[in-house]
Structures are given as structure tokens and as C-alpha cells.
């Protein structure tokens, strides 16, 4: 038990004095409360002139962690002109980032496609929040919306703020082709050494607020790794490495695939791919657009009907290294499937299943046309 107590104590030692001067936080004055009651009461609400900074500074007064994130990105994204409205345009630079997904448990969320990217993104106690009314006067770097499940309904008093947060992991992976700046480095500010290749839209953050209480969720651009593998570092690394946005491209050149235990088989062709689990056959319907087979949902009669899957090919990276230093496609030797027992990518792992499939014939026929 000793180590537990040491850990406990270590974790409870965050503040041992003051060394830097301080700002006493908390500006929950009446004036600010009025600001929030005004903008939550009316879909057409407008932030009074000169009050936008107060809107951001007082958004999550009871949650310093979330407020600190807002404080930073509001300044940073304003200065660097990283505007939420540019997300679809910015992501056109990429080939694989077709949807944002979240694993956050605080705010049950849905994955949503790039097109109409904000539509249907949030559920609140299971209820989809379909309608987003921009709060006039909020900033493009971190726009605030009034949200409601019903266009005709009265305002719910719920606000959502969205801003781009990038992906710290990718600070080191700057050779990957999809990490590009949104404006092609026309803006010198953005293109300092470290940030040149850092895509701020790799991740976005949504903060929801109701009665001064906030929750936040980080959405990753088509990175289901954080969805499917909450506690499995290996699987997470595998996605980083093999999935379409990762370091290697493996082409699926075999048609017939099967897992070692025989539970799952797949037939992958250009037109119609199927996945069979426990004898039940499902059609694989691409959900990330026709250009991305990796994310989709299943149609069939069994328990995985209309449930999502995430698939990526993997293989022996030795071939790719030896042939060329360029990103070269090689033949996939494995197909990794994660099948979710839900229609969302959330972090409830108990319903999700992972299947690793191998080519049925060592040198099989090409399934691709």
C-alpha cells in the first residue's frame, strides 16, 4: 500500500505557495450573469458591443480546467486567424479526414461527417441537438451557438462553443503529408518552425454550457483510435501507424479474409464489401464518404446491423522501408476491424469487438478491379 499513499500524497501536492504573482479569478458579477441570461434566452441574441471578451472570460467560471483551455485558444486562434468557418476548406487539403469523432464521456456525442459538420454533433441526455443558432457578436475563432433539438422550441439555455485545438501528438510527425497549414503558410505568424506543418484542425474542442456548468469534448479528425482503444496503448499506436492518416499505406489486394479463430470473414472488393461475424453477413456501407473505406456502418440481420465499424489494413513495414523512403503503398497482410455495438463512437468499450483478419490464400487474387 505504501506506493499508493506516496502516489496519493504526490497527487495532492499541487500548490505550495505563490511565486509569480496572481490573478484572482472569478468575475461572476451580476453584469456577467445578465450577459449570459440575455444570450441564452433568445436565438437572435447579440453580444453587446465590447462584451465579447467577457463572454469568453466568464464562460466556464466553475471549471478552471475548461476555462483555461478557452482562455488560451481564444487568444491563440484569434491571433493566428484559425477560424472555425474554415474547417471544411482546410480539411479539403487532406484526403482522409472526413469526420470528427469524440470519445468524451462527459458529453455523449456522435461522430459527424465533414459535410454539415456541426449538424447533429451533440446529444444532450440522449437527445440530439440539431439546431445551432450563432450568437451574433461571438468570434470566428471560437463561435458560440445556442443549441436546441427543435427549431420551433424555445431556447434551451444551452450554449456550445467550438474552436480548433490541433493535435499535440503531431508536433513530432511533421513529415506526414496530411499535416498542412490551412492557408499554405501565407500567414507568417502561423509558419514558425514548429507549427509549420501542424494542422490546427486535427482536433476541435466543443464546450457546452448550461447554468454556468460546462462540459467539454475533444473531437479528433477521423481518428477513431481514441474511440476504440481507450485503455489499449498498443491498439492506439497501431492506428497511429497503420490507419489511413498514419505513416504507411497498405493496399488491400486480397479479396477473401478470415480471422484465425474463424469467427469473422470478409470479402473486400471495389464495389461491395461484406463482413461476416458469427455466420451473419453484413454489407459494409462506407460512412466516411466513398474515398474512405475505413469508417462505415454495417447492414445485415444480426446484432451488428447499423452499427459502426472502423477498419484499417496493416502489414510488414519492412517492405515499405526497403523499397523507398517515400510513402509507398504495400500489400496489406492484415485487416483490423473494430466493430462497435453502438451507432456512436463512444468510449463504452464493452460492446465493441476487434477482429484481425488474414488473407485466406497466401497469394490470393486481387479483389480490386
Amino acid at each position, binding site marked *: 500500500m505504501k506506493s*499508493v499513499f506516496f502516489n496519493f500524497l504526490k497527487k495532492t501536492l*499541487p*500548490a*505550495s505557495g505563490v511565486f509569480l504573482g496572481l490573478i484572482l479569478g472569478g468575475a461572476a458579477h451580476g453584469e456577467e450573469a445578465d450577459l449570459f441570461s440575455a444570450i441564452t434566452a433568445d436565438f437572435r441574441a447579440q453580444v453587446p458591443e465590447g462584451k465579447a471578451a467577457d463572454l469568453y472570460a466568464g464562460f466556464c467560471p466553475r471549471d478552471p480546467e475548461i476555462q483555461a483551455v478557452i*482562455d488560451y485558444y481564444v487568444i491563440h486562434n484569434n491571433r493566428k486567424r484559425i477560424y472555425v468557418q474554415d474547417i471544411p476548406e482546410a480539411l479539403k487539403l487532406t484526403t482522409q479526414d472526413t469526420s470528427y469523432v469524440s470519445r468524451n464521456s462527459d458529453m455523449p456525442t456522435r461522430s459527424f461527417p465533414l459535410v454539415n459538420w456541426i449538424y447533429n454533433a451533440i446529444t444532450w441526455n440522449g437527445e440530439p441537438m440539431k439546431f445551432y443558432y450563432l450568437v451574433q457578436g461571438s468570434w470566428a475563432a471560437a463561435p458560440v451557438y445556442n443549441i436546441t433539438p427543435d427549431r420551433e422550441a424555445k431556447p434551451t439555455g444551452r450554449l456550445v462553443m467550438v474552436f480548433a485545438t490541433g493535435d499535440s501528438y503531431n508536433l513530432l510527425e511533421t513529415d506526414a503529408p496530411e499535416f498542412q497549414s490551412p492557408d499554405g503558410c501565407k500567414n507568417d505568424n502561423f509558419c514558425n518552425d*514548429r507549427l509549420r506543418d501542424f494542422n490546427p484542425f486535427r482536433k476541435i474542442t466543443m464546450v457546452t454550457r448550461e447554468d454556468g456548468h460546462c462540459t467539454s469534448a475533444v473531437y479528433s479528425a477521423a481518428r477513431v483510435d481514441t474511440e476504440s482503444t481507450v*485503455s489499449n496503448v498498443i491498439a492506439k499506436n497501431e492506428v497511429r501507424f497503420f490507419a489511413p492518416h498514419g505513416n504507411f499505406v497498405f493496399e488491400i489486394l486480397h479479396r477473401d479474409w478470415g480471422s484465425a479463430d474463424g469467427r469473422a470473414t470478409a470479402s473486400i472488393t471495389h464495389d461491395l464489401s461484406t463482413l461476416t461475424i458469427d455466420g451473419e453477413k453484413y454489407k459494409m456501407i462506407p460512412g466516411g464518404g466513398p474515398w474512405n473505406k475505413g469508417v462505415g456502418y454495417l447492414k445485415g440481420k444480426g446484432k451488428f446491423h447499423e452499427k459502426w465499424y472502423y477498419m484499417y489494413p496493416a502489414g510488414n513495414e519492412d517492405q515499405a522501408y526497403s523499397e523507398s523512403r517515400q510513402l509507398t503503398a504495400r500489400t496489406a497482410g492484415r485487416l483490423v476491424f473494430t466493430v462497435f455495438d453502438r451507432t456512436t463512437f463512444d468510449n463504452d468499450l464493452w460492446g465493441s469487438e476487434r477482429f484481425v483478419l488474414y488473407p485466406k490464400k497466401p497469394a490470393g487474387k486481387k479483389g480490386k478491379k
Partner: protein
Amino acid sequence: MKYMKSALPAVFGLAALASGFPGVSAGAEDAAPEQEAQERDIFGIIKTAVNKNDRDLLLTAFRYPVSLCINDRLEVYQNAEALKKYTLAEIIGSEGLVSSLKTSLDSQSSGEAFEVSYGNYQVMGIGAYVSDSEMVGISFTEQGIFSVNGPGCGGLKVPKLQFCGDPEQDALINMLAQNSFWMFNNGTYENFRDHAYSRLEMIPGDTVAGGSYDFVFEGKKLSLERDPGSFHSAPVFRDAGKEYLILAPAEPGEEYCKYPGLCRPVPFVHVFSKDRGAAKCDPGEIVLAEKYTLNFCPFAPRFNAEIRLFTEGFTLEQPELFQNSYRNEAGDMALSFEERKVTRGSGDESYEDTGNFALLTFKGQKFEIPYSLKHNLVFRNGDTEILAVPAGDYERANRDSENLGCVMEDQCIRPTERMLLFVRSGNGNCERYPLERQN
């Protein structure tokens, strides 16, 4: 954004805590007599104050200024006067906690409060647990109480910091500080890009009294002295000319101390610097990355990704891995393992033990190192380092050994089909060579 939200409850949540705090006397015998007396004083003050519900007495024990979360509000209090608007129960957390603390303290002598060394000073702690949402840890040194912590204000927090004088940089610091892990992990962190080569060696405070940190910046080794008043999750270090604020934030969605005592290195460390006494920081921060899992080949991200793929999350217990031997096609590279008797200790204290060694032949050079199951193998020759990483199809490896633990936990068995050699020269450039298993 709640990167660390589970850490505190997870530790507190152990049922054992409810039954009181067992004594931990590590290091107590080393304390100077007067220091010990002062610690007893602080402990005595807390005990008396809690027993007699004497708030004013408790307030004499604080080391001011102190940052506290009271009634879900995090503030810095400059003196006892500023805390007099609260009751003792509000300061501790709740009436229930005061009563629990009372029981716990009555059954302890000061020597039984647990103690750790952190940085360059010793810290004592006492605590009480009622429920996951009602618990408290009080930490003090001989100088006084410097923190009272519970799940309030979202758990572990620091008040707003001003270090750089630029609103964007300070906002970044505060965001990183909110999500920083309080204790840096063991490891070597490097950056080849932002400035000149930078390196940070981390030696955790609880194994090395005095907390030694080695920081090489622009080729110059610095000896850093920790500001004892700085925040644990956002420590300030100093040398003759500069001040450094060092932050180790967790990546969103990643946990770094899943099991008590088993922490992976926090992969990124952010360092902000400024001249001593300056109002503004040096431009930009340096982001360093953990060397042997993330940044061994700083100019070859795909190599790094492959190293990470085959390094993180595998079980440490896999002795059979070291029974294989590996070689490349050309035959000028080979890796094998050897077990032999070695003499440890010296003189009368010496004894025979079994030593395990890894032997590498690389283009005519021969290397030999003792190996441990815990780490990747690193062979060194001057500035050149060779990292050997076992690789292959780990699905197959885990299936063949019926290792079901691989699904949810970080307990996958390493594949043994191949051994990858990453050869890094002093300037950071890497070459990669795969060796195939021979047996």
C-alpha cells in the same frame, strides 16, 4: 478536457484509506532533530486545531501565501486574515471530513504521518476519506501547511500563473499547468528542432533525495535549482542567469499513471524560459519529447512511430524473448543473449549472481550490455546509439500464447519475429536495419 480527472478519486477510492493511514517512516531517521521538532509542531497544531475546532490556531500553521480550494473556489490567500471568513470545516472540506480527520489523527503520532521527499525538501501529509467526493489531503513541511486538497475545484489545480508577461503565452502556460502531471516521469527528453539541441534528464523526486535535474540547453549543461515555493505541477527552476517554467501536460485522452506506481513517461515537456527578473519570456517555448519511445529518430517520424508501435503497452515479463538470436541477411549484424555468472558487490560483501547480457555485432563492431526486461536495448559507442526493438505480428504472438489480457490492458506480448535496429548518430540522423529470428 478532463485529462486527469480520474487520478485523484482512483487513489482515494481505495477502501483501505477509509480505515486510516498506516505509518510510513521512510526517511524520517535522516531528518535533522530541529526539523523533526518543527514537523511535530505543525502536526501538533493540526491535531489540536481539529480536535478543538480552533480555526485560528489552524491558520497559524499555514505557509502563506497559500492557494486553496474552498467552497469550490480556487484562490490564493496571502495571510491568515484572508481565511478568517471561512469555518474550519469549510477549509478542511466538510464537517464529515473534520470528524474523520479527528479520528485518524487521534490514532496517529506525528511519525505516522506519511512522508515523501519532493524536489529539495521533505513533505509530510495527512488525510481523511469519507467518500469519493469527500476527501482531503493536507501536506506540510517544517515551514507549515502548503496545501489542503480534495476533489473540489475539479481536483488538482493551480491558481492562474503569470510567467511570460504575454497574454497568449501565459494563457498557454495556464492551460498546460491545469493539465500537467504533477510529477515528472523518469526519462530523457530531447528537442532537435526549435533552438539548438536541448535535452532534459528527469530523475523522479521520490527516488533521489534532493531531486536532481539535468538540463542541457544549446549544448550547455545547466544545474537547475528548484524554487521551493513553486507549484508542483508547474515548477520553476533557476540557474545563474535564467528562470525556467517546466510543464508536462498529459495528452488529451491519455492517462499516464493507470496503475499506481506504473507510469509511462509523459511524452512531451514544455519549457518556458526568461532572464532572471525579466518581465518577458524568451520567444516560444521548447517542446521536448521523450527520447526512447517518441523521439529517438527526430528527423525520421516514421521510424519514431514504428519504435512507439513496438514499445509502448507491452508486458514487461517476457524472458523468453531473450532466448532468441537474430541476424541480417548479409550476416554482418547479429544479436544474441547470454546468461553467465557475475560477481556483485566487493570484498566480504561480494556474491555470485546470474547476469544477463545482450551481445550485438554491428558491421564489425562488437557491443555487450546487461539487459533488463523493462527497457528496450540501447547499445552505445560514443555519440552513436543503437536501439534494438523486437517487432513482428503481435496479433499472432498473443493468439499463439492465448494471451487474452492483450485486449484491454497494456499486457500484450511482444512479437519476436524480428529485431529492428535503429542506429542514431550524434546529429540525430537514423538508419534502420531489420534482423530476422534464427531459431
